[in-house]
């Protein structure tokens, strides 16, 4: 089953205004750079973006914020983006901040076909407002959990290290982060990879995301892989 498309433009061509998108990555690590650039070029507006972070002012999702293409962000941490903060405080941008584990597990639930999860994260905080809670016995003691719903996203856009024409994906190091569970969670999943190989070249034992979850795959170009905090030690 060949999932290959030519490039980012072709992969995202049917993304319309007001779509809900999942975008993989943690900070600027493992983000779908080519697809973000194509979304900027296409100019789709009113997007709801589910992504752990919102990029920085001039890279990642920050590029979509700058062009006012994002209506709503669903994230866990957005501290690195001044333009984001400005749009939020001025009311131009709607934001839902949710715990990082809740974000990951709501993606996972969608990919596993489960409508909801129970998590203790956010119990007793403003995250719990309006949410159903249940008490379970954990390690012999009562503990309260919040019910959190699986995400419902029109498209998931992820970045992998390697992929094959069947859509099987392999991630590298901490660039894996949210990419595998978002890949499982999209109604349509688009994967961009640094290296696209013919089916059969990847060891089936090494696949992180089976191709059944991936609808379109392409080999990206000119990866910048920008480092957010360059920290080094002296020799």
């Amino acid at each position, binding site marked *: 089953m060949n999932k290959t498309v030519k490039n980012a433009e072709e992969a995202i061509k049917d993304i319309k205004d007001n779509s809900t998108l999942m975008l993989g990555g*943690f900070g600027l*690590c493992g983000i779908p750079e080519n697809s973000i650039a194509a979304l900027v070029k296409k100019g789709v507006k009113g997007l709801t973006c589910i992504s752990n972070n919102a990029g920085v002012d001039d890279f990642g999702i920050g590029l979509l914020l700058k062009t006012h293409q994002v209506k709503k962000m669903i994230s866990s941490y957005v501290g690195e983006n001044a333009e984001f903060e400005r749009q939020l405080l001025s009311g131009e941008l709607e934001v839902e901040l949710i715990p990082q*584990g809740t974000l990951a*597990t709501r993606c996972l639930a969608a990919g596993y076909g489960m409508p909801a999860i129970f998590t203790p994260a956010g119990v*007793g*905080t403003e995250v719990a407002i309006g949410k159903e809670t249940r008490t379970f016995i954990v390690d012999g003691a009562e503990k309260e959990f919040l019910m959190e719903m699986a995400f419902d996203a029109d498209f998931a856009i992820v970045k992998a290290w390697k992929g094959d024409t069947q859509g099987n994906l392999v991630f590298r*190091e901490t660039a894996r982060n949210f990419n595998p569970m978002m890949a499982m969670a999209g109604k349509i999943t688009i994967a961009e990879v640094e290296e696209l190989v013919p089916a059969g070249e990847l060891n089936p034992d090494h696949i992180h995301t089976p191709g059944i979850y991936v609808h379109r795959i392409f080999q990206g170009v000119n990866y910048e892989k920008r480092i957010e905090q360059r920290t080094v*030690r002296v020799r």
Partner: protein
Amino acid sequence: MLDKIGIAKRIAKEIKDGYYVNLGIGIPTLVANYIPQGMNVVLQSENGLLGMGPFPFEGEEDPDLINAGKQTITTVPGSSFFDSAMSFGMIRARKVDLTILGAMEVADNGDIANWKIPGKMVKGMGGAMDLVASAKNIIVAMQHVNKANESKLLTKCTLPLTGVKCVKKIVTELAVLDVTAQGFKLLERAPGISVEQIKNATEGKLIIEGEIPEMIID
């Protein structure tokens, strides 16, 4: 009075052989530098790594290899990578022995606030809410008072909460305290700090029993 490094050194003494430890951003990150040699400790970074090592040598930075603070790092032998759902799965399932994180406020019942200042700062909670809701043991590294000299160890947090009744121990520039069912229990004083100074800097309920020793830091 302790500086940031002093706080990190004192917290490092709480780490035991065989621990899996999650270190938050800021002072907690420094703790990694003072884990005693020869002790078997595995550092978890919640973006998807067990076995975090020191910063890379210049020129060896890898953009695919970062910690939860988005800093370039390295791995140590025996490390493993995983996705974000598994990362928070192991946190939720209480596999991580110790969580060390910073705070803006802690209440004497163990409530913690560290993610939002309404109208001023909106950065988000990141993984902090998941960590504090599930961790077996939470140590907070924080300043005892704010810039206006107001206590950050309170009867009740004034800022939006990150988690409830979860903090077990606090290390500040002035003291080491346990959070007990009765309130903050003073365990140790920082070098040169009197019990009176700690009392004055603590708004929440403070329990002082017997002689309070001065902490020993190498």
